[in-house]
């Protein structure tokens, strides 16, 4: 009798659901917190529903959806041992991110790389970036949302209008980021823009001037603007290592940052370096999947956009890991989906939804080809 092998998808989904249940159940047994019991029962069900019904209904990429669901669950679980009351708020924020993910997946189906799309998204993105300069009292962190819109505009311009107009938009966004003093975001944005131009065009006459412009802008920012440098990060590798491989029950000294929106240090303190490290390493298959989606996209717009989203997520995760371990004096960076900032979570969910939607469209195109082939036979 042949034994049916379970697929990797089934195993991943089952393991993530089981882990999401246990990771809330164990802290709930300590003092019988009803919120944690509720989450232990509810979260696996939500993960199952999103990974099966929602992903199928809106043609989203199941692997990306499952990975993001687990990252969100890990972010919620980080609060469970130390602050159970904060878990529900984080769960609601993650729910908003999932709604944004679905919206992104739906939107990319009807989004065309027209001049109108480029103009609207570029205007909105630049307006969000310039908003803080126009009204300094505004404290809402909208940088990631602005960069998501600018990425759509950049991909549309690069695929339809050529590299020059796209580079002008990229330089404008870079100037605004530098004027706002967000050096780390500026470095990540310029890296993503240069890599995308290199991937989409590849000509030295385009890439080298673009590199020169970026270097010139950074040089000008450091000389003309007041030196702000990179803000220091409160964490370091020694602090994180004090949590040990599997974490400590009362959080060690240095982990309680009430003003920090980054959840990764809290996750490392609560569950140790092993679980947090494995969770951070899940960005590797996420990036691989994103590049695979970009490589099999039918249109240049979708290819550039999918590669841009993958680059944004990968570069941000890498920079956040480097900064959180204190190897580079960077701060203000959070691992995607492991943050308690609602605008950031929604923006990350939205760009991940774009990736899911492009993947769903690739699958639909391939299924159509297979259907035609079947009819021809």
């Amino acid at each position, binding site marked *: 009798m042949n034994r049916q092998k379970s*697929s*990797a*998808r089934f*195993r*991943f989904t089952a*393991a*993530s659901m*089981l*882990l999401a249940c*246990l*990771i809330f159940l*164990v802290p*709930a*047994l*300590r*003092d*019988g*917190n*009803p919120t944690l*019991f509720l989450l232990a029962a509810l979260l696996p069900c939500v993960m199952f529903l999103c990974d099966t019904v929602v992903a199928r209904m809106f043609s989203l990429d199941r*692997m990306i959806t*499952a*990975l993001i669901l*687990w990252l969100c669950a890990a972010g919620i679980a980080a609060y469970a041992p130390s602050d159970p009351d904060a878990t529900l708020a984080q769960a609601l924020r993650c729910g908003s991110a999932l709604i944004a993910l679905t919206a992104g997946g739906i939107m990319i189906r009807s989004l065309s790389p027209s001049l109108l799309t480029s103009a609207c998204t570029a205007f909105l993105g630049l307006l969000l970036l310039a908003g803080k300069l126009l009204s300094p009292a505004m404290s809402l962190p909208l940088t990631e949302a602005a960069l998501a819109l600018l990425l759509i505009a950049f991909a549309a311009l690069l695929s339809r209008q*050529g590299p020059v107009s796209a580079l002008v938009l990229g330089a404008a966004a870079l100037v605004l980021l530098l004027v706002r003093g967000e050096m780390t975001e500026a470095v990540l944005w310029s890296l993503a823009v240069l890599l995308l131009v290199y991937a989409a*065009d*590849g*000509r030295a006459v385009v890439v080298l001037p673009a590199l020169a412009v970026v270097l010139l802008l950074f040089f000008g920012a450091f000389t003309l603007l007041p030196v702000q440098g990179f803000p220091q990060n409160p964490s370091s590798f020694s602090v994180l290592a004090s949590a040990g*491989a*599997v*974490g400590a*029950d009362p959080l060690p000294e240095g982990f309680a940052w009430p003003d920090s929106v980054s959840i990764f240090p809290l996750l490392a303190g609560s*569950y*140790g370096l*092993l*679980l947090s490290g*494995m*969770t951070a*390493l*899940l960005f*590797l*298959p996420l990036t*691989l*999947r994103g590049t*695979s989606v970009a490589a*099999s996209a*039918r*249109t*240049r717009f979708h290819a550039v956009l999918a590669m841009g989203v993958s680059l944004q997520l990968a570069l941000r995760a890498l920079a956040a890991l480097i900064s959180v371990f204190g190897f580079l004096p960077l701060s203000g960076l959070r691992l995607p989906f492991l943050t308690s900032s609602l605008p950031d979570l929604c923006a990350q969910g939205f760009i991940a939804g774009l990736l899911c939607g492009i993947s769903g469209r690739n699958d639909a*195109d*391939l299924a159509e*080809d*297979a259907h*035609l*082939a079947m*009819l*021809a*036979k």
Partner: protein
Amino acid sequence: MFSVSPEIYSVLSLASRWLFAFFALMLLLFALAWHHSDRKERRDRFRNLPGAGTVGELVVLSGSDELPPDTWFPVPREGVLGSLRSCDLVVPCPGVRSQHLDFSWQDGTGLLIRPRIGCEVLVDGIPVSRHGTYADAPLLHGSLLQVGSAVLRLQLFAALSHTSRPFAPQAPVGSPVESGAWTPPVQDPNAAVQPWQIPPDQGYAPAPPPLSPPAAEPLPPAQPPLNRPQAPQRVKRADRWKEDWSE
């Protein structure tokens, strides 16, 4: 709600943390395995559908030493034609710039050509400008595309060649048509081979298909006009599919 004593909880907490780390490792491995199996499945599907994502092929009628005549390229739905190796269609001929033109397929219209700045393109002998009229002169089945010294003919897959514009063969500029040596084909050239008719292991080999001009078929004898209109003959659905998708 239900809770356990602190002693039991401390043991349970320590054991569960190791269990969580093990599960997290499993998640990472399962995710990588999932990605690997999906890639393998996609590769197999592409192997069975070698023409997936393409609309036809461009056949070289006259090229250069690096691009001999009768070479053919699969044409994707969208891309860049130029002499650079990173282009979707690489045409290494004199007069072809590194990125000469953009092309994109539009259902019901044809293959739209958009030259880059300063690049000359002729579609069926008509110059195509970057702004304005490039959408009015799409490449259809059998259309000739001239870039630099290269002359290419587009052969669409049969399923995609049903466009509104009739096929009108044109002589390439500078061809012996002016001297009367070149005669346009009497009937449409054959549509490109359907991608699913290529054996899976063959793929798109550069072997050129025979491109001999089709012989003129004798015209059928003229029928006397009928006095009363005939009702259109109903075609079975299966026959319609046969017409649409078979050669």
